[in-house]
């Protein structure tokens, strides 16, 4: 690759304001939300039109320049971290809402549109876009598709993959794929499902058609406080056993409660070992019935205090502590490392205890604030990057937590993606044949491996160097299979 030549070609296809090459201006692009890992790109392209975007991809394909797509850069696994000798393809200027189609209850938007901007644009019609990652004021819908982002309300309303109906995707081969549309199914393989969560490795999303739902007319938010993690975890399974699927069901442990209280004074009981936040929504009559049932379940599980919020202000106050939990952690320690494993719900209390033991043996505090209803843990490991060795220790411990999740029958990532962060843990979750299958799927879209190379799927060499023969639940998986 010749950098001057590529730069020249890009200049002749994009206005100067769409190309960044100044070192100081490149700095913000050196990392995403996983700030511990950095790499300065040599160029950032910010196309304003799809034609410009395709030109960038064509030039890069012809000159074998790696491309890292980037939405808002809020990703937590290093998915948008630049690669050496590659360019960053920023989608932030493709930020138009192209169409709001009320008859079909869909919106068609460009990839750089912020998640929350969609709901804001349709609020006057009583509609909203359901997936609500905590980062929704900042993250882009393209990034949401790439990570299959979830949020508090995904328990009832599904993840990104369940709320997207159509995509336009440009591949490194130069094809523009129109996937899905405003209808519910289209012939052929379900490329929409394949694209969701593919971490910008198969194609660049240039347009998204999302489903819009009517705002539920009534809501109630409840807080239940427990003296032990086990009681709180049991309450979670009891709710589902009774046939209730709440709109959201979140858990916070003692350390997270303290931090949130110090920060925003949401009125959480400091004496609790754990609290649950449970939101129910639907029509008013239904909510009244359900509320009584859920309160009974929460009490039977041992709740020593229950708060209920029926009006919007009180509800906002209860959610405020949960929403502020991450920034609040910033006051407890200079740095924190957020994990994202998922487990079957029934394993909650066991895995939380095992995490507490790891915390003790590593000598690092861990706070838990997470999507309990989906079994999606977010342990926050507190550390101080200025203390030599602490970052390594935090990463080491994080890896152990993810391995715990896999052993419990879960996954190393529920919604933040693998990125560059969890490549090693992928070797624990998948065997060589599975990793090769991922590779062949990648080749079908990007044979030269130019799109977001080195992310999401570890190479077999990497796994074998790690000694990829990790043990699942005491048994070697596929004992007769070849090892590398």
């Amino acid at each position, binding site marked *: 690759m010749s950098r001057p030549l590529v730069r020249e070609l890009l200049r002749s296809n994009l206005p100067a304001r769409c190309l960044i090459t100044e070192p100081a201006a490149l700095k913000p692009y050196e990392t995403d939300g996983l700030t511990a890992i950095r790499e300065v790109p040599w160029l950032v392209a910010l196309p304003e039109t799809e034609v410009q975007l395709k030109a960038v991809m064509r030039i890069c394909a012809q000159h074998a320049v790696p491309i890292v797509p980037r939405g808002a850069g809020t990703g937590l696994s290093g998915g948008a971290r630049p690669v050496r000798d590659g360019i960053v393809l920023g989608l932030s200027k493709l930020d138009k809402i192209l169409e709001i*189609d009320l*008859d*079909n*209850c*869909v919106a068609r938007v460009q990839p750089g549109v912020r998640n929350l901007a969609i709901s804001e644009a349709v609020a006057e019609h*009583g*509609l909203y876009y359901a997936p609500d990652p905590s980062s929704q004021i900042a993250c882009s819908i393209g990034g949401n598709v790439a990570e299959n982002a979830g949020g508090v309300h995904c328990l009832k309303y599904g*993840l990104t*993959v*369940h709320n997207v109906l159509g995509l336009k995707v440009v*591949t490194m081969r130069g*094809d523009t*794929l129109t996937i899905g*549309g*405003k*209808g*519910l*199914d*289209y*012939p*052929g*393989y*379900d*490329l929409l*499902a*394949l694209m*969701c969560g*593919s971490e910008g*490795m*198969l194609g660049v999303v240039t347009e998204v058609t999302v489903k819009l739902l*009517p705002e539920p007319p009534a809501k109630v938010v409840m807080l239940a406080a427990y003296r032990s993690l086990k009681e709180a975890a049991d309450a979670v399974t*009891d709710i*589902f*056993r009774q*046939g209730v*699927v709440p709109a959201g069901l979140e858990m916070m442990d003692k350390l997270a409660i303290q931090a949130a209280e110090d920060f925003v004074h949401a009125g959480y009981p400091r004496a609790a070992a754990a609290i649950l936040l449970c939101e129910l929504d*639907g*029509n008013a*009559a*239904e909510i009244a*019935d*359900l509320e009584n049932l859920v309160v009974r379940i929460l009490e039977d599980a041992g709740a020593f205090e229950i708060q209920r919020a029926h009006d919007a202000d009180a509800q906002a106050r209860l959610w405020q502590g949960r929403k502020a939990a991450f920034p609040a952690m910033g006051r407890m320690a200079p740095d924190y490392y957020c994990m994202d494993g*998922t487990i*079957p719900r*029934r394993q909650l209390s066991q895995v939380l205890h095992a995490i507490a033991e790891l915390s003790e043996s590593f000598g690092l505090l861990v706070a838990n604030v997470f999507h309990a209803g*989906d079994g*999606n843990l977010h342990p926050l490991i507190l550390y101080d990057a200025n203390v030599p060795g602490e970052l390594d220790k935090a990463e080491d411990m994080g890896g152990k937590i993810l391995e715990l999740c896999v052993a419990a*029958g*879960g*996954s190393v*990532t*529920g919604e933040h993606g693998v990125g560059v962060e969890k490549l090693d843990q*992928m070797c624990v*979750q998948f065997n060589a044949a*599975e990793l090769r299958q*991922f590779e*062949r*799927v990648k080749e*079908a879209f990007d044979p030269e491996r130019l799109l977001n190379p080195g992310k*999401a799927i570890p190479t077999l060499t990497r796994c074998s160097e790690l000694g990829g023969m990790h043990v699942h639940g005491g048994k070697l998986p596929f004992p007769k299979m070849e090892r590398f």
Partner: protein
Amino acid sequence: MPERDDSVRLTQVIGEASSSRQRLSIVGSGSKPWLSAPIEGQLLSVAEHTGIIEYRPEELVITARSGTPLREINQLLAQHRQRLPFEPPCFRGLGTLGGAVAAGIAGPARPWCGSVRDAVLGVEMVNGLGERLTFGGQVMKNVAGYDLSRLQVGAMGTLGLLLSVSVRVSPEPQVERTQVLELSADDAVGTMRRWARVSLPITATCYIDGLLHVRLSGAESSVLSGADGVGGKVWDDPLFWATVRDRELALFKTVDPLWRISCPPAALLPATDVALEWGGAQRWWRTSMPEDEVLAYAESVAGVAQRAWSSPVFTTPHMHRLKQAFDPHDVLNSGLVHADAAA
């Protein structure tokens, strides 16, 4: 139904077929022969690979071998007041879990309770190289690696033979009831689109012969107020939705060509004698119009038309490349992925 793990044999047969380039035609219970019409090859039946591997009602997940009859799964779930959210058809009372996932056909609840793909959490499968692979799992959220489990839904076994599938289940509603409204087809579309913009406990709609049937599900209070909201009269046919689901309405037994149109739900109607499901997004059109006119109509409303009772085809170059990524020797259900797609 006996439990039987036939996975070793199934894996072996595919491995050998892969080496000898023998084409295989995968069959479950044979409930949907029309779907696999052009497939040639030695029959490989998963009907003997049966049994529920794990079911924990409180996790809202069931994992079963692919040959397990849907009937058996539905019965077990019903004992725990749960159900498959995607309401798969049981054509002629038959159907297996693997077949339902491979075909990807959802029933009347589709727009409200999700597609087959929406419910799939993980699969264990054998690709065309005879490799046994696991993707996804039993947890609700999982973004480790590409989502190759949901990709199997609707792939008709062309990417791999499904050994077992984990699907999300949902609680049964306390109450279910159906209202019926007498409307013109145009008004039916308008009414359904109006309903989509307000919160109503609708879980199915079917417009046929001038009558719009609407199913409401949920807590009793919610269903009662929902019935007020939609209006009309109570419809007392307990078998109606199963008839719609299994495509046993008289409409499906006609001699005239019957077309299935999948389109944006508010799309203009092609004629007035069209049956509508899924809030308008799935339409059945019986017509003797020439094929190109039907296709042109579908295209004009950003939809697609296909003859009812015909097999799906995978025609684009990307689909062909995906097929090669899973089954490089074209062993599995060959014939559905058109070679001219390679263009």
